[in-house]
Every structure is written in structure tokens, then in C-alpha cells.
């Protein structure tokens, strides 16, 4: 540890991380600069930081992949076979965290849900009522579904076929709507990223950020609601 420079007062009160092996100070590096031992990624580390990214929603897929590959080469258990048990355990946990981070951030919808969990505590309030403009559509669909289920497979084939066709139409409508929601969600991505940049320049954007988060939350819960209904239809009519 460096004891020559007198640290400023506020630095003294800060917690300091130590290398588990040589006890020298570490600042979130993946490997200790003194003894080159692999360092555990802390449990509190969010996925963006884990992959060396700012907390923004527009992500370049190629760059994300390159970073994932680079870190995989750093952490994968394959490269720790000859190391101590502690290092092997760290490599295993770091790899598992890295894989979860990559999987989550790779997919834009999961990425948005994750950001909401980070920023607002939860990704979505579980919706029990349909979006207002789809109320009638979904009501009709539920009735058709009920009818289809109660009729059973022995029902007259013509009526069954007709119901099936109607349900398929419903399904297509809802799927189109789902895509629409996703497009709206992605528009919010740029908005969010712009706010993040303004904030980094020292501007106050908290209220605006909360508004965007709320919008995204709304979109995501509608999307989940629709997706559940669609998968319900798909499993019922096969």
C-alpha cells in the first residue's frame, strides 16, 4: 500500500477494497495489479458495470460481444485449472455473473426490464386488466377461448375449425400490437440515453428520468400481459 502521499480527509473515511490474496488495494480491477490474482466481481456489481458499459439502453451488439469474449477469456474456469481452489471458485462465480450479464443486456427487452429493476426497484407491476384500448378485443378472445376449451376435441369439426380461425386472428392482432409496443419501447431508449448524457454533464434530470422509466414500465407490463394471453392461445389451439 502506498503510504507516502498523505490522503485527503474524505478519502480516509472511504472504504477500501483489498486483494483477497496480497491485501494490496484494489479499485474494481479484474486482476490485482500487485499479485495478478483474479478478483471476485462483487455481488453488488450491476451488469452494465460488469461489462464496462455506461448505464445506457442503446448498445452496439458487436462491441458488447467483443467485450463479453474478452472477459470470458479472463474469467473462464478453463484457464484456472492449474490455479488454487480459491481462484477456481472466483473464476466460476465471475463467469456465471458475466454470462448472466451478457444474456440480459444482449436482449433489448430484458435489458430494459433489468434497467427498471436497477432504477425503480421492479420491472413491472403485474397487470391484471387489459390495456384500455384492447379491452373489447381481449374480452371477445377470452370468450372464444372458453368456448373452444369447453367444446373439447370431440366437438363438431366445423365449429371447432371456425373458432380456431377466429382465435388465430386474435393472436395475429395481439402479436402486431406487441411489436408496436416494442417499437415504442425502443424509442424511449434514445430518450433515456440522452437524459443520462445530460446528467453526466451535471444537469438535473431526475424528474424527466422518472417519467421515462414510468413510460417504459407501462409499455413492458402491457407487453407482458399480451404475451401471456398469446402464449395461452398458442397452447390451447396448439
Amino acid at each position, binding site marked *: 500500500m502506498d503510504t507516502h502521499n498523505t490522503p485527503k480527509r474524505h478519502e480516509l473515511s472511504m472504504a477500501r477494497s483489498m486483494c483477497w490474496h496480497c491485501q494490496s488495494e484494489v479499485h474494481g480491477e479484474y486482476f490485482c495489479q500487485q499479485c495478478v490474482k483474479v478478483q471476485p466481481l462483487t455481488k453488488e456489481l450491476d451488469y452494465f458495470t460488469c461489462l464496462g458499459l455506461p448505464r445506457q439502453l442503446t448498445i452496439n451488439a458487436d462491441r458488447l460481444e467483443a467485450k463479453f469474449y474478452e472477459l470470458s477469456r479472463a474469467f473462464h474456469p*478453463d484457464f484456472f485449472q*492449474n490455479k488454487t481452489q480459491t481462484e477456481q471458485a472466483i473464476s*466460476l462465480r465471475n463467469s456465471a455473473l458475466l454470462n448472466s450479464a451478457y444474456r440480459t443486456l444482449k436482449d433489448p427487452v430484458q435489458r430494459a426490464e433489468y434497467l427498471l429493476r436497477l432504477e425503480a426497484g421492479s420491472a413491472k407491476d403485474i397487470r391484471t386488466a387489459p390495456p384500455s384500448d384492447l379491452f373489447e378485443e381481449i374480452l371477445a378472445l377470452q370468450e372464444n377461448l372458453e368456448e373452444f376449451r369447453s367444446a373439447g376435441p370431440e366437438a363438431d369439426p366445423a365449429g371447432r375449425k371456425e373458432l380456431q380461425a377466429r382465435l388465430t386472428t386474435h393472436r395475429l392482432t395481439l402479436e402486431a400490437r406487441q411489436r408496436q409496443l416494442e417499437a415504442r419501447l425502443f424509442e424511449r431508449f434514445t430518450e433515456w440515453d440522452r437524459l443520462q448524457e445530460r446528467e453526466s454533464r451535471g444537469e438535473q434530470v431526475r424528474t424527466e428520468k422518472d417519467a421515462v422509466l414510468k413510460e417504459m414500465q407501462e409499455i413492458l407490463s402491457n407487453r407482458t400481459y399480451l404475451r401471456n394471453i398469446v402464449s395461452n392461445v398458442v397452447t390451447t389451439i396448439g
Partner: protein
Amino acid sequence: MSRIVGIDLGTTNSLIAYMDGAAPRVISGRNSRSLVPSVVAMTDNGLIVGDAAKERLIRDPRRTIYSIKRFMGKSLEDVAEELRYFPYRLHEQGGVIRIQVGDKHYSPPQISAMILKELKRRAEEFLGEEIRKAVITVPAYFNDSQRQATKDAGTIAGLEVLRIINEPTAASLAYGLQKKTQGLIAVYDLGGGTFDISILKLKNGIFEVLATNGNTHLGGDDFDRRVADFILGQIREHHGVDLAEYPDSMQAARLEAERVKIALSDSQKSGVALELPEGKGTFRAELTRDQLEGLVMDLVQQTVDPCRLALKDAGLPPSQIDEVVLVGGSTRMPLVRRRVQELFGKVPHSELNPDEVVALGAAVQADILSGGTQDMLLLDVTPLSLGIETMGGVMSPLIRRNTTIPTSAKEMFTTYVDGQTSVDIHVLQGERELAKDNRSLARFQLKVPPLPAGVPRIEVLFLIDANGILNVTAKDVRTGQSQSIEVKPSYGLTDEEVEHMITESFRFAAEDLKARQLIEARTEADSIIRATEKAFALGGHLIGPEEIAAIKAALAALQSAKGQDDHRAIRARIEDLEKATHHLAEVLMDTTLKEALKNKKLSELP
């Protein structure tokens, strides 16, 4: 770091490979064949594995075990449908199949361990050093129980299994090493008993598996059965004999079916010949490639759906796949190649021997683990979703299929009733909605301090390691205390059983060694008897009657010793015979030398 070998533990054949400098190499046996048939024969004199065991399939069907991989990590119920094809007695104990041979019972990992030991011995003989560490391959679609059973087999065989890797990904490593391929590749692996499809992205030395799918009960064995059933039907029809009553004839039919199937990959038709039991003559027929394809068409078709699902999970249309690689002996069938070509719209690759490519890849992975190759890295996935049973018998998934491993999921558990002191957890693997339709992996109990309902907080970490094997740890969040969990595998051996089997295998090792020594002594006896007879024919007239009598006596003594089970006695008689024929050999040497000299000009002499 001691050497790590790569092992392909196959349904019908197994291989062992090592890294020879920068190139993986398969180790051949004395017969210069690289394949070791995955057959184990229990004889009166101990254990035989490989080619010699395969020869006993017909002679001693009830004590000769083959295709053991189909039983790994399975319960009796899982394999009920195919039991009629196997001539030995099976039962289940503690969720694990046991095979009864005489009055002994063996679990599938024990039988597999016998094959592994044979491979290990082969490598030790070739490399001249002890082998203790290995990478063993498994079908990508193997579930946790099947992987664990394979690892157990390694442990019983005295091997530290450093990594279980998937066969199609191993193959991709071997291909990648050779060709420096980049892009999206599909590996279609149809072996003796299992089918896998894996979609990979190869980029700058990273082999990232995007999706995998398969069927761990579909392969060349099933094709053979179709052909065998066809032959059996013909025999019933034309000769009124039901071979099902004769285990030896059933085996003969199966082997003939395999031979015909293989022949039909190169030719359009093949003769079928089978000795009927009780001297009822020989069945003869002819089978065309078209007929064969008719018999197995639906089986080959069964590989198509998994391919489509894997592509869907990878989010790719078939047209985006840059290369298709064929692995496994069954991909030699023209029908399979046609089907794959139709599906992906391109001619599949098969430059590397489809029988050897998996073992070669395992050796490459072994080299990576030992710190040799550093520029290649395999990022594999877990083939099946992992979850737990929740209220109402529903499976609640924690880790989705095709998630890159290692991976983990945390779940918090609490109690329903005041003062409840334990929580039962049932771990499942599979894609179905209901718990009962999925594979039960294990059950365990969390200990909980007696508190009002809902207050305890037990955090359980489910971690799938780089082998695709599940590890479970738990922690009481309130006290921060971790608790050790005793996971009872649903279809696997317990640690104690594995321990016990290791000791047992040492006990049998002496017996097995005796069996091998006996086989080797007999083989040597055979060759010296043949050589002596030949020498007699050539030079019998050149030696005296006393000598002839001595040689004849020594020959007779060796013949009789060969019939006994004492390898030392055989060796002793071999030495006697060698002594008795010493003079004859000299005489013969002289004459042939003279003959040779007579026919050569002086200038040609050294």
C-alpha cells in the same frame, strides 16, 4: 502438470486421444485399431473389454454387456420399451439400473468404468506413463443425471474427470483447430445411441454455442434393430423359427444387421446370412439400400425437429448457417447425408473421420485445461431448462435451456406454517409445464429455524458449472450462515456407493489382470503353435526322430495348458516349446540362408 487425455465414451465404440505437440492424436491398440468396442464380457476368468469381448456377444450373450451408455443415468422405466432387445437381466435399486451377471450386480457407471480402464491402460502402454486425468465427452443433450453418471464412471475407473464436454462441441474444436473456421456452424452428430445438433458461432478462437438440441435415445443402434426386426420377421415367415427365444441368435441377428447396414452405405445391395439355431440351416436373403432406407426413414426424420428447434432457439434460419459438420458413424449413411443437405441447403462436411473427431476434440480441450492451447475457448450451454417444483405440481424454471455455462440462479425460500423447521426442494430438468412431466434431478431439505410463517429467509444458489452439472448451496440470509445440503440424486449413485465401487474395482483389478494375462498368453501360444507346425512342414526331415518326439510332446503339453486357466503354466509350456524347437529353428535358418545365398550373386552380399 500431468498429462490429461481426451476420451470419447461412445455407445458402440470408445476412443482415447492425446495432444501430440500441436495436433491431437487417437491412440491405437496393438491391433492398430483406434476404436475400442464398448463391450464388456464377464468370463469365468475375469473381465474382457473391447474387440475380444465383442467376439463373445454371440457365444455368451447373457454375460456380455454392450450399449451400456443407453442406461447411464436412467431408471428402468425409462428404458422399458427396449428391454426386449437386451439379453441380460436388469433391475433397479435406489433409482439406478443394475445389470445382473451371474450372482453379481453392476450399475451402468461400473460397466462404463471397465471400458474407461481399458482405454486408460491402452494410453498408459502407449505413452509409458500413468494416466490419472481425463476429459470425457457426453452427448450435448445429456441431462444432469447422465452427466453425473459419466463422471462417476471416471471416478470408479481411477480417473479425475477434469471436464465433461459435449460431443458436438468437441468435434467443432477439432474442426476449428484444423481449418481455422469462422462463422456459424451446425454440428449434426448421429452416433450409435444418441443424436445431437449444436449451432455454434466461431469467432477469433471463441467457440460460442448458441443452441443445442437432440435425442439421447436415437442412433445407429435403433437402425440396427429395425434391420434385425426385418430379418427376424423374414425368418419367422420362411422358416417358422422365432429367434427371440435364442439370445445367441438374437445377438447374431443384431450384428448381421449392423454389418448389412454399414455395407449398404457403400453399395446398393447386400447379402444377408444368418445361421439358424438347432442346425436348422442358414437363412439367406438380400437387402437393398432402398429397402434399408424404407426401414429407417422415420428414425432419420426424427432428427429434423430437434434441428429446427435448435435453429429457432439460436434465432437463425437454416440459410444463415455457413457450414454443416457431420459427426458420428451413422452420418456415413447416404440417407442421413441427403436429409441434412435438404434441411440446411448445403453439402455437409465430413473431412475428419466421423468416428474419431469427438475424441480428437476432447484431446484439444484437455490441452486447453492443462494450459497448452490458450487461444481457443469453448463457451457451451446447458441443454435443458432447470427448475423447481412449486405449489400445484408446476415447474418453475430458474435457468432456461441454452443458457451459457457456468451460470447460476438464486432463489429465496421461506415457510408456510408457523414453527416449520424444514422446506423440501425438488429440482427438475426439462421443458414441460408440469413437474411430473420433467426429469426429476434431486430432492433436498433446507433446515429452517422455527419462526412464524414467512419470516425465515433461505437463499439457495443453483449453479451449473462448466461441465453442465448442478451444484446447490444454501444460506440463511438472517444469520448469514451457510448450510451444507445433502442432495439425494433421483437417478444416480450416492457418494458412498461410488466410494464402495472404487474399492470393489480395485478388488476386481487383480482378477481382471489375470484374465488379460490369460488372453495374451493364449494368443501367444496360438501363434507359436502355428509357427512350430509350419517349421515342422518345412524342416521336419532335417532333424532326428528323438527331437521330433520332444517337439511333439512339448506341443501337446502347450495345447493342454492352453485349455486350462493358468497363464503362468501356458507361459512355462511356451518356453519349453521354444527350447525344444531351438535346434530346429537354427537348422531352418541355416538352410534358408544357404538357399538365399545360392540364389544371390557375390556382389549382392553385404
